[in-house]
């Protein structure tokens, strides 16, 4: 399975943790706007990412460092890019 699909699956898992069903999540879906992620969801996603890709991945720290507009517009593809960079680095 490619890393993009795997991470989209993790995002979906978090989005479904409150009982609902979420359809397949595309790379352009924004975490905050489309998926209505909050800090609790972000922490849950971070836990899943760190389990799979190691402690080098720190998505909350990455998000916190971004400008306001970039946080609002953060997509699933951006998460994939961050994980790729963290794993490569």
């Amino acid at each position, binding site marked *: 399975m490619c890393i993009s699909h795997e991470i989209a699956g993790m995002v979906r898992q978090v*989005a479904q*943790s*409150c*009982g*609902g069903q979420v359809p397949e999540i595309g790379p352009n879906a924004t975490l*905050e*706007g489309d998926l*209505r*992620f*909050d*800090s*609790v*969801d972000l922490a849950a996603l971070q836990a899943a990412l760190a389990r799979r890709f190691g402690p080098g991945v720190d998505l909350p720290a990455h998000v*916190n*460092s*971004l*400008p*306001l*507009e970039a*946080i*609002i517009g953060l997509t699933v593809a951006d998460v994939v890019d961050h994980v790729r960079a963290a794993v490569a680095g």
Partner: protein
Amino acid sequence: MSRFLLVVPPLAGHVNPAQGIADALLAAGHEVAWCGSEAVLRPLLGAGAVVFPTGSRLLRPQSDHGLAAVKSVWERFIVPFATFTLPAVERAAREFRPDVLVVDQHCPAGALVAHRLGLTWATVVASTMDLGHPLSAMPQVTAWIEERLRGLWAKAGLPAHAYTDPRFSPHLVLSCAAGPLAGPGPFPDHFALVGPTVGTRPDQPDFPWEWLDGRAGVLVSMGTLADDITARFLREAVAALAPLGERVRAVVVAPPEALPPLPAHVLARRRVPMLDLLPRMSAVLTHGGLNTVSEALAVGVPLVVAPIRHDQPINAARVVGAGAGVRVNFARSTAPVLRAALTGVLDDPAPRAGAAAVRDTLAAAGGAPAAARHLAALAGAAAPEPPPEPTEQAAACRSRSA
């Protein structure tokens, strides 16, 4: 005795705590006037209050959440409202000549006028959005907000070298959030965390008290947003309550037409007499506005918090941190998830004990009388004894000033 001009935004959640402070000031013999939107203030304050009107302007709806909501509250509300009201606030200050301007944290116009006229001013913190540094981990977001504030400062004709953050008076900051709700300290010496400053609220709606019986009371209060996501949440909340008829009586604060058909043990009311109702409740399901959270915890009622935006996620995290309730997802939680959260808070003694601990902290924080003493001291008056019957005296003072 001293003169205080209160500058508030047109939001009940900010006017109510300021009114508690005003009542306590009036009771101690001080003079109080208001500056804000009279259309909003008058119904909340009653006919006797002295109001310097700023006029009203249509505020664009803000239905976002997360950082998008932070952005829109600054861009669509705090900044344009400050710009729009600045001349009226300055006129009011020149006319009333207060000893202290008492400024809501999100009404920078009050702070700007204080600096323009060289007046002493105090901040009232009625939301935790800017208390306890909730955004300090986001340097570019805090810089973005400061840029807006510096823009207002410059636009008000104030010199850049004298910049003072209009959210924080250098003289006195009164916080309606206290204890664990205020977030991590330490706070500077001129911060007074007085806790909820509950005052008299005229025109409280009736409530069928006899309808509440021996069963556990659950209050559902999700604010006034009337969008699809709130409608979905309320449907799920009603479905969560539906099988609990043998043990629960639930009051949902919402227009009845916004809800599905209700079972006999669920009552919908557009408005409720919140302060009288809360002591009768065993749990509150709320979006987590600071007033509802503080007022529930002030009587030791544990919470299920489903935060939507602004300071609500911060309050939710602080409630969870204090062990006084649980947090659920507002946008996605389904009926079984909400039911589990509610029955958990009803059955588990730990959240009740956590709420009781916060209740004791809030009781010790001093509330409105403490706020009035701090303000009186700031105004240079001797701190008066706390009055025995603040509400009656306040009413008398208010009718005198009418």
